[in-house]
């Protein structure tokens, strides 16, 4: 039986992690169908049909799908479930909110946040904030799986030509009302998908001092991150938080400045390809995961860092 991928979108475009989830779905079974639920989401459905790994698209439209409410989405997906062995989506806030609701309706035990497909019923997933990896095998006939998007490469986004079928809308769930969504707009790359992340910790000592981080981030075209300590101290807003209780990031380059490296922070960044730590405490745990450690006072090192970056002829963006 085929795998059903739940597309995440904003009614106009696919959200990028749909492509990562598509890759994971195709590793479970070559026959991937994708469902897209929304309102006036034809252009996103078209994009979905162009993913070469997707063999068929089911588009379900209704006014009550405009805001992606899980209480509305779950019954529509449950109705499709009988034709599928697996239901797959990203383990971001969209998928985390939605998938357990589907799984409970199907009386199936969900496997959350997998980082590897070992076989169609066996998966690798981090537990204890990534401090241990568990290999789990699900014995449920219907398998509900959420995938950690940063652990799978995005699939090709063009070249496919899947058929788009219309699916049947379900009833509206009237006890939940969407009020508003405030998206944080920024010229910077999004923290979750940025190629470079520059993060500050409690060592920054004040919110004002974060402008040192901003300068470096601007120069490198990087996203700005922070440790929980920096967020708790009020230096920066919480949408910048990297860690077990914030975002998990896997950039090519992660620069940790004035961050000691608490377990919960390491859980959010230690899979980064290259890690740099700048800290005046040579014993700080952050150095145990850093590829390049610099034991220095950040208030001296950061201006020097800017100076050195300015000397470079080119910087990859």
């Amino acid at each position, binding site marked *: 039986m085929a795998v059903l991928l739940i597309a995440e979108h904003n009614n106009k475009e696919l959200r990028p992690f749909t492509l990562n989830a598509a890759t994971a779905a195709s590793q479970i079974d070559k026959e991937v169908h994708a469902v897209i639920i929304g309102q006036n989401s034809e252009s996103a459905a078209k994009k979905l049909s162009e993913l070469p790994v997707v063999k068929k698209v089911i588009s379900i439209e209704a006014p009550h799908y405009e805001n992606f409410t899980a209480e509305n989405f779950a019954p529509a997906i449950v109705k499709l479930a009988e034709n599928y062995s697996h239901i797959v989506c990203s383990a971001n806030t969209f998928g985390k909110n939605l998938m357990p*609701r589907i799984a409970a309706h199907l009386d199936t035990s969900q496997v959350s946040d997998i980082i590897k497909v070992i076989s169609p019923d066996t998966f690798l997933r981090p537990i204890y904030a990534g401090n241990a990896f568990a290999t789990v095998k699900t014995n449920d006939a219907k398998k509900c799986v959420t995938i950690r998007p940063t652990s799978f490469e995005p699939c090709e986004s063009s070249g496919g030509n899947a058929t788009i079928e219309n699916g049947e809308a379900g009833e509206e769930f009237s*006890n939940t009302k969407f009020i508003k969504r*405030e998206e944080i707009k920024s010229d910077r790359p999004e923290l979750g998908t940025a190629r470079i992340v520059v993060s500050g910790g409690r060592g920054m000592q004040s919110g004002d001092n974060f402008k040192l981080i901003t300068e470096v981030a601007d120069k490198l075209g990087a996203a700005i991150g922070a440790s929980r300590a920096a967020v708790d101290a009020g230096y920066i807003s919480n949408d910048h938080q990297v860690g077990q209780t914030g975002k998990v990031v896997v950039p090519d*380059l992660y620069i940790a400045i004035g961050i000691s490296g608490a377990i919960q922070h390491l859980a959010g960044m230690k899979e980064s390809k290259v890690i740099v730590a700048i800290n005046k405490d040579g014993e700080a745990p952050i150095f145990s995961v850093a590829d390049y450690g610099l034991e220095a006072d950040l208030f001296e090192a950061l201006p020097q860092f800017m100076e050195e970056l300015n000397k470079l002829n080119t910087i990859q963006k």
Partner: protein
Amino acid sequence: MKILVAVKRVIDYNVQIRVKEDGSGVVTDNVKMSTNPPDDNAIEEAVKIKEAGKATEIVAITVGEEKAQETVRKALAVGADKGIHVKTEGVLEPLAISKIIQKIVEKEKPDLVFMGKQAIDDDCNQTGQMLSALLNWPQATFASNIEVKDNSLEVTREIDEGLETVEINIPAIVTCDLRLNEPRYASLPNIMKAKKKPIEEINVSDLGIDITPRVQQLKVEEPPKRKAGIKVANVAELVQKLKNEAKVI
């Protein structure tokens, strides 16, 4: 209004997790255990709502082995009125836990159920949503602000793109984010008083639910270690390494 708050006993978040050599799990013997951190936020929020005169009773529930009762006792010490301990052995999956809580909801008839958004041991992030599906109640996950209205809650949710606000009619489920509030510490007099508050003990076998695990944990292992890095002498060397060795800038 009556609020049921679910709490879980987990390895304390400051403990360095160690994987057992035989790959059967992580070491829990002689390890400090605490209430799952966002469950503390769930209790705190319920207590705040009661203090504001908008709730009349708070019931704290846990599902687990004998010692799990400590988490209920702690909830009683910060302001819950009554405890429920559903006694079980072994590891339960979120689906089983949500079926157990569903039974308790049918019996206790709360208007709201609060819990943490995720447990920091299995990191599943499922129970609240599953319970909400089983009860066909509205859900507000990852809550960072709750306003109690006449017959509804207005909840701000932390989502990847920023913040989302939803209004959910009561009865409803809310799963709490760490940013919802600052959990208080229990005072010594309140800890003493909590010892006198009632905790109802229920054997899971009396609930008539199939809690057989559906997912087998085949192996638990340490994550791959990062290769040891180097310390650089100065900023110039750092930039040179990033440019020419790592080739990332």
